[in-house]
């Protein structure tokens, strides 16, 4: 039985080899379809894996409360100073009223120019507390992090890129730099850190490498809440001011199950004291769930697209098999005269079709599985010719092969073989033996 099946397979391969090019072209459709499924899904998984990593960077037990510029009409244009955002009082209220939090970390950030001689860095000046380091999983490259004794002092910790701009050659520790109009002493430098996910209205993901950290108290005393910005150009520039106390409060909850509930409570609490919607409560866990949903939808879409390409491949296969059956009508007649039953003829042509699609499918899987190295080589080739032509998302993309996509694509290609092989095979089996024998 098994031996007979094996013989039919061998016969199928032999018959296919009679028309190598044609068989090859027919299998190509399935090859492309199968490889497409694996490639597309691997790309999609790569993108969503990174998105998830970034969200996880935000911390699954965290609730992020951010200041948001309220959307308001032009009626405020005359009012040159906009006051909005989270208040130090909000911070106090959260800490005092919400019991199940392990810590809450206030933070204020603004763009600021750092200077040393003629070297400048347009950095993000972050006023923060000691816990900020652990919260954002920052690591020190050299020197030390801010301590409680630094509160109010003019000390600064530079992030990697900031340090590189101001001190391309020297060790920055112990040196002084200009922060606005005052001297600050550099006490430490952090390591490079990958960006985390975008949150709270800002589309950019958070890039930690152009930061400069100073104690929150220092920021408040030396820089203040009100920051004037020059806008417009031409004659007589305009200034607008922004009066913001805190940019963000990160709340860490003791128990991951309580994240959603606590976020609700914080939201209710803040609503009582804010007329405008000048804050946003972001729950990374929720972002993660959203990303998961997006990923599922994305995968369904990819599978549908790839399924269509396999369907097209299947139609190609059917076309070839119909031609084969017509061409081999006489062979069918001979085999029938020699004792082949209809079932024998059906299995012969069906197996032939499946051999065709399966070989296309297997090669497609092999090609699909090598997506990593191939994509890497392609990327490098493009980058050497025109480094700027690839968007950053593609540059950092690492395809991740999903095992289910391999199984699925192989199953679909076999299914396509059976589905589109049945009709030609039945057509062959139901030929009248005498007519078939007479066929030229």
């Amino acid at each position, binding site marked *: 039985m098994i031996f007979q099946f094996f013989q039919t397979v061998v016969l199928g391969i032999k018959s296919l080899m009679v028309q190598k090019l044609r068989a090859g072209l027919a299998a190509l459709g399935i090859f492309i379809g199968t490889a497409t499924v694996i490639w597309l899904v691997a790309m999609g998984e790569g993108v969503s894996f990174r998105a998830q990593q970034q969200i996880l960077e935000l911390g699954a037990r965290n609730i992020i409360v951010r200041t948001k510029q309220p959307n308001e009409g032009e009626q405020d244009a005359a009012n040159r100073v906009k006051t909005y955002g989270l208040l130090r009082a909000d911070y106090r209220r959260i800490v005092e009223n919400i019991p199940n939090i392990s810590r809450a970390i206030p933070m204020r950030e603004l763009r600021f120019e750092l200077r040393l001689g003629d070297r400048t860095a347009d950095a993000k000046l972050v006023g923060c507390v000691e816990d900020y380091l652990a919260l954002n999983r920052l690591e020190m490259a050299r020197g030390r992090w801010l301590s409680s004794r630094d509160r109010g002092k003019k000390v600064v910790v530079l992030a990697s890129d900031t340090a590189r701009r101001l001190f391309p050659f020297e060790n920055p520790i112990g040196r002084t730099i200009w922060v606005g109009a005052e001297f600050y002493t550099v006490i430490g430098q952090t390591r490079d850190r990958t960006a985390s996910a975008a949150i709270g209205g800002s589309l950019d993901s958070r890039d930690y490498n152009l930061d400069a950290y100073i104690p929150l108290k220092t920021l408040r005393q030396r820089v203040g809440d009100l920051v004037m910005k020059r806008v417009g150009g031409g004659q007589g520039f305009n200034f607008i001011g922004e009066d913001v106390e805190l940019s963000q409060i990160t709340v860490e909850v003791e128990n991951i199950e309580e994240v959603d509930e606590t976020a609700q409570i914080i939201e209710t609490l803040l609503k009582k004291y804010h007329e405008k919607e000048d804050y946003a409560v972001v729950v990374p866990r929720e972002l993660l769930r959203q990303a998961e949903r997006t990923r599922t939808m994305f995968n369904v879409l990819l599978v549908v697209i790839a399924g269509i390409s396999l369907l097209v491949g299947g139609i190609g296969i059917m076309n070839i098999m119909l031609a084969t059956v017509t061409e081999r009508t006489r062979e069918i*007649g001979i085999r029938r*005269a020699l*004792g*082949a*039953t*209809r079932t024998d003829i059906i299995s012969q042509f069906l197996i032939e079709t499946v051999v065709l699609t399966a070989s296309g499918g297997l090669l497609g899987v092999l090609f699909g599985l090598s997506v990593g190295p191939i994509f890497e080589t392609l990327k490098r080739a493009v980058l050497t010719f025109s480094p700027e032509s690839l968007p950053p998302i593609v540059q950092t993309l690492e395809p991740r092969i999903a095992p289910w996509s391999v199984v699925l694509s192989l199953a679909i290609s076999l299914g396509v073989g059976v589905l589109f092989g049945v009709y030609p095979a039945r057509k062959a089996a139901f030929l009248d033996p*005498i007519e078939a*024998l007479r066929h030229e």
Partner: protein
Amino acid sequence: MSVEDQIAFRVEDLCRSYFLKGETVHALKGVSFDVLAGEYIAIMGPSGSGKSTLLNVLGCLDRPTSGRYILAGDDVATLNDYQLSRIRGQRIGFVFQSYNLLQQLNVLENIKVPLQYQGLVGSEADVLCQHLAERVGLGNRLYHRPTELSGGQQQRVAIARSLVNDPYFILADEATGNLDSKTTDEVLDLFETLNNDGKTIIMITHEDEVAARSKRVIRLRDGLIESDTRN
């Protein structure tokens, strides 16, 4: 042994009509005869007299419109496609005018085809096929493709193939029609040897010299038996 035991098959009042767009062609109009085991019969008759039609019915490739064809106790008209296929594979050997070998297979594989449909595979099958190839004088051509053989050689492969299932009888439709007189003689020698060994052979031919070598001649005309004579 009674005559009944020796009967290979029997046809009774066999009719076969073709229905074409309102027109009916009666190819066989009531043919009856018995064939005993071990007979060597030539069927003759003018073109269109129904010889091939009769042979197709005898070979279970076709079913009679009416009448009975009794083969090993079964009325063939009542059998389904599967049963007919099994009979063709087990009891009947075909030899065609145009050889009808499978081009993608070599001599040995061609001879083996009927065995595969009976589920007979493996080394015994190989030995049997090789033996048959030798018997028809092609022991040194086992791995040649049909395109590499002469017409006479191809027909001998076809005869070897028709013997591989040890059939009750061999049906040959103008088996020598494409061959020159020398190779015709070779094929007929082969048939004669087979018949002497006990095989029943029924062949269609247009040539009197060919028919002369058989033991019984049935002449058809317009779908009816004109004469049935023993040499």
